[in-house]
């Protein structure tokens, strides 16, 4: 009875809990690095920092504002690019760690028995 319960827990309940935690951590990494938001606002002004083009058309003022605003967008895009890359790498690492952990957990009984027997053999 207890053995049946254990097998059920080890191979069904516990992996379910691990997958849930895995999902939580992945969601967290997406939220922490705000990946969807960064993609959406990739070319937006950096910190909403922009210059007004003025009410009347003035070529000098217009070109000045245009180049500064373009700069603000480029700075924003560069910073966002690096954060997106870092966020993606982090998420990938989290994904791999969780996958390895899940595999280790499933194989744990065999591995523990092997480790115990191997220890006995060595002494």
């Amino acid at each position: 009875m207890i053995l049946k319960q254990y097998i059920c827990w080890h191979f069904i309940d516990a992996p379910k809990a691990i997958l849930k935690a895995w999902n939580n951590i992945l969601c967290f990494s997406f939220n922490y690095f705000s990946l969807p938001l960064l993609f959406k606002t990739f070319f937006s002004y950096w910190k909403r920092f922009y210059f007004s083009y003025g009410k009347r058309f003035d070529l000098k003022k217009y070109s000045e504002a245009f180049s500064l605003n373009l700069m603000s967008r480029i700075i924003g895009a560069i910073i966002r690019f690096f954060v997106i890359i870092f966020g993606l790498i982090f998420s990938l690492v989290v994904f791999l760690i969780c996958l390895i952990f899940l595999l280790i957990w499933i194989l744990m009984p065999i591995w523990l028995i092997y480790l115990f027997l191997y220890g006995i053999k060595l002494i």
Partner: protein
Amino acid sequence: MNFNIEKSLIWSALKWDKFTFLKHFKKLFLIIFSVCFLVFFLGFITEIISEELLKKIFGYFSISFSLFLSLKILQIFFETKIKQPIILPLNEKAKNIADFLSFETAKIIFRAKKRTSSYLFLSVLDNFPNIRFIFLRILLDIKVLRKNLIKDFLEKGEDFEKVISRSLQIAIENKHSKIETQDLLLSLAEIDPFLRRILIQVHVSKQDFQDLLEWLKGVYSEKERFWEKESLRKKGSLAKQWTAGYTITLDKYSIDITEKIKRFFPFIGHEKELKEVENILAKTENNNVLIVGESGSSRKSIVENLAEKSLLGKCSTVLNFKRVVELDINSLVAGTKDSEELEFVLNKIFQETIRAGNIILVMNNFHNYVGQKSVLGTIDISNILCSYLNYSQFQMIAVTDYDGLHRDIGKNSALLAFFEKVEVIPKSEEDALKILLNRLYFFEKKHKVFICFQAIKQIIEMTSKYLPALPFPEKAISVLDETVSSYAKEKIILPKHVSKIITRKTEIPVGDLEEKEKNILLNLEELIHQRLINQEQAVKDIATCLKRARSEISTNQGPMGTFLFLGPTGVGKTETAKSLAEIYFGSENKMIRLDMSEFQETSDIARLIGSEKEPGFLTTQVKENPFSLVLLDELEKANSNIINLFLQVLDEGYLTDGFGRKINFKNTIIIATSNAGYEIILKAIEEKTEWEKVKKQIFDFLFQKGIFRPEFINRFDSVIVFKPLTKENLLDISELLLKKIVKKLETKGIKLVIEKPLKEKIVELSYNPTFGAREMKRVIQDRIENTLASGLLRGDLKKGDKVFIKTDNFDLEINQ
């Protein structure tokens, strides 16, 4: 009742619980494998250990590590699977009620030696270590408790089935998924004679015990695991703020509430108000909030909780990840030279707020900055503000109180139209208790004291009763703070310390009736008679009422006592009120005296209860000094609409003031005096009419003339007709008055001897039934006091002299 623990779902957990000793082996294997690993690692690096030996060490490491890990996994399996079987819906008619037991409860029942309530409680003491926390807080030593239980009560327990079925009922009432130890303990507190008795002894009610158990649950709740959604949410986000604009000027003159919230205490109560605030802010238009509530009703905690919810992404999408920033206008005023610069900076701040796109601006004490006052040192930003409030991107939470709303904001309808009002009612006593319990550790740590539960309970009860004008939770927190700071040296804070603080704050003797006060109450009639001659019935009625109020057995809804004194002038009506104020409230100054002849017009109502132009003469005084004697002198002269106002006060114990606030009169004594119909009394004395008939004649007179209506008279606890004073009474009064002069002269070292002929002479000169004792005061003043004053000024009277007063010409006769 079907109860079989051996066939229950939790039985296997109880069986396997015997193997908990294996946790010691787990620790042992942990030490072995750590040591083996260290030795192996060092040997491998330094090569000082032979290869053969290294293999053996690695072998021991492998065995101990595999055993440690196996035991750890089995422990997790036991905790998460075996101890928590399938949850069945609670049902009183179930096949086996034992199926509903939590593991802790089942363990307590399983280990009880006999199936009775007292053995169950003994098992709780032995098998539930957290119970120590509860009993320590209510100042009970668990060892002494156990000893007393075994000695006198172990065989006097109640029926086991009764305890279990009540536990199940409590669990259903509390919406628990299982019968928790908390439910079992509450059931024992109701049923077990021993536990019931000790809780009564330490003044802990059933509700208190439940509050304590709830608190225990909070203190020992499971720790959050880092991979759970809630814990991960708290880490916030790195890039969300990047989509918002810079707020350089705003940052200079503001406090970022979102940054501060990690230091806050848990949010309790005001959930409805928070929801309202969220709904208004989430709108596309008119999305500014005006929070209105009394100062101290924790209005700001709503804003703080909003900031926390927004930070954790728990609000609606439009409100998530916003910055809640409080504008510090005072530092802005201090940091700018003149109003022009101030206007410029404010414009800049508001523009930044709109441009940033993620700011919710908070302004505390909003009324101070928008009233159209032209007083030096005040500012009015309403015009600048109105031009920004038009924009839906500009979101604001303004915090104000009722006075500010009526006096300043209400007058500016254009400004008010931009806001939606959210009224904050003060927190309930239950919420205030939870808040105090949550802050307990903070105060204990800060002052290095231990605060017992009874002291906390006392704070809630006494602040509710004696400081009714202030809102919860602020008043309770402030009393806790003051008590802890004042008695930190005593190390343990007890209810008596709280009583002393309340007494200091209100100048009312509160707490347990002390010996001295008990004597005062028991001898109240004699004490009043020390100042008042005759009027036995009046004094008796008043004394009875006070004894009832102080011993807290009165169920009266209205004030502590309400009396109508009828009778001619100078018979002691006001003197009775004064002596009562002194004896009961500690000082004559605790008397709020209203000359009702000054309230003869309907328009005088505003003067009495307050209006936008002026504070209420009566309501403000009662709000500030709830423990007072209210004397309504010459009530018959007041306007009938004003008299009607008092109907509610006499009946319900409160009056609604000009600002719509309920002013509590429950701790006041109300005395109304009237000399209407005094001619009837004088005539009755002349004709020697029976006293009971006189009272009836006066009532008939009052009703016929329409001076008071019967329903008004009926609302008084007692209507007392004061008798005119006889010559004998006046003799006694003259002695009372002359004694005051004797006392004063004693302080100068002069002895004044009062003889009977002198008293008789004074009475002879002053006797007039229409004016009572009032004429006597004048005679004593003219004849005695003046003569003595002249003697003192001339230097005839010196220290050590003994002086008599001649009755024929009131000259002084001095014996040196």
